[in-house]
């Protein structure tokens, strides 16, 4: 079957889609967006987290046919051209990336968290990221990155000097 949907603001068509195919497969294999990662294929790991009509969901659990006419935003759609989203920049600066496989899902999920809750506490961050697994277990740096992104967004909002990452990375 053929499906037409919006990905990162661009009308996109995918043809010869199998009826039981996941949105994740369509994104990675048919429309050239491999940023969303394919790991568990059962919604356990969060590596394929994308926005579907504004809600973060696991792309592996969305049937391709369900996105006909819908809006999808992937990790590739977070940056503004060459300028990384503050969440992405914070992950880079805090060193919150080891093998990097879980990173795209964490970026989208963190992006959503900070849209809904600009200054989350640690418990809220852990709750929001509870469906994103990092098998390198680099969770402390990930927590640092989320706090850093939140602080920078707050700074940007109040137009003060950017917060330096050293303040947040501990050691």
């Amino acid at each position: 079957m053929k499906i037409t949907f919006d990905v990162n603001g661009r009308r996109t068509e995918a043809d010869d889609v199998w009826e039981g195919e996941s949105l994740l497969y369509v994104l990675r294999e048919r429309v050239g967006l491999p940023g969303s990662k394919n790991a568990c294929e059962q919604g356990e790991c969060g590596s394929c987290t994308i926005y579907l009509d504004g809600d973060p969901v696991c792309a592996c659990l969305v049937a391709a046919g369900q996105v006909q006419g819908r809006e999808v935003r992937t990790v590739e759609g977070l940056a503004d051209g060459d300028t990384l989203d503050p969440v992405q920049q914070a992950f880079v600066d805090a060193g919150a990336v080891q093998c990097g496989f879980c990173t795209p899902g964490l970026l989208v999920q963190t992006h959503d968290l900070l849209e809904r809750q600009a200054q989350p506490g640690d418990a809220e961050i852990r709750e929001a990221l509870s469906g994103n697994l990092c098998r390198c277990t680099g969770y402390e740096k990930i927590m640092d990155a989320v706090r850093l992104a939140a602080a920078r967004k707050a700074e940007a909002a109040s137009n003060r000097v950017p917060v330096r990452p050293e303040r947040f990375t501990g050691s």
Partner: protein
Amino acid sequence: MEFLRPATWDEALAAKAEYPTAVPIAGGTDVMVELNFDRHRPVALIDLNRIPELHDWETGADGVVRLGASVPYARIIGHLSDRLPGLSLAARTVGSPQIRNRGSVGGNLGAASPAGDSHPALLASGCLVEAASADRGPRMIPIDEFFLGVKRNALEPDELILAVHIPSATGPQQFAKIGTRNAMVIAVCSFGMALHPEAGSVRTGIGSAAPTPRRAGAAEEFIAAELADTGMWASRGELAAATAKRFGELVAEAASPIDDVRGSAAYRRHALSVLARRTLTWTWDEYRAAGRAAA
């Protein structure tokens, strides 16, 4: 395989009548796992995401919430925790935020897993499941008659779930679940309970400790009699520790758990007795506090 996209409820029922073995898909959190791992190749998928009434809820004049089958858990938590506290507590334990943005009570009921997180709360609430078919129209299935066996429910092959009719809470409700962590856990066992002061009754739901979710009838009768005999609904007196303990024992006796990879039968029984004792104490303490606040 076919992918059917009904735009209306009537079209969905017509599709299910034409393809009785077709699998309805809403949030996909169960269905897509089966497809991704090639465990199941249905003749067709029926996408329910385009049918507005499945995603809505409304509260009637009688206080009954008509919850559309596809309303995601995240919406229940965000909008209905005052009216449906037990179900909202259970919803908070479902999967992860991503799963709660897609998964819904209709899917939980359709899958009818003994471990479904919403089931104990639904049993404790005394809700009705509204199912319908193209040929016979709608019908109401009491939740007590809905679960028939492991992953088997009372739906006919041509039926779909439209909504669940859940009475608004008239007293405190609780839900507790055992797992290895707070998120992404299939329950080792779970327990839901609701005080119904207006009826002088207590309802329960046991999860993941029997072939189906089930109530603990003897425990419900015991505690209702205790509260009635001692005039406690009116006096809002302190619950005796021995009463709570006995309630827990009766709940454990109502289960028929198995040993499996998530836990042993003996552990499940013991854990249930503890969950039941705790949740009874929590709900009763909340009932007492509400009385003091009103005084």
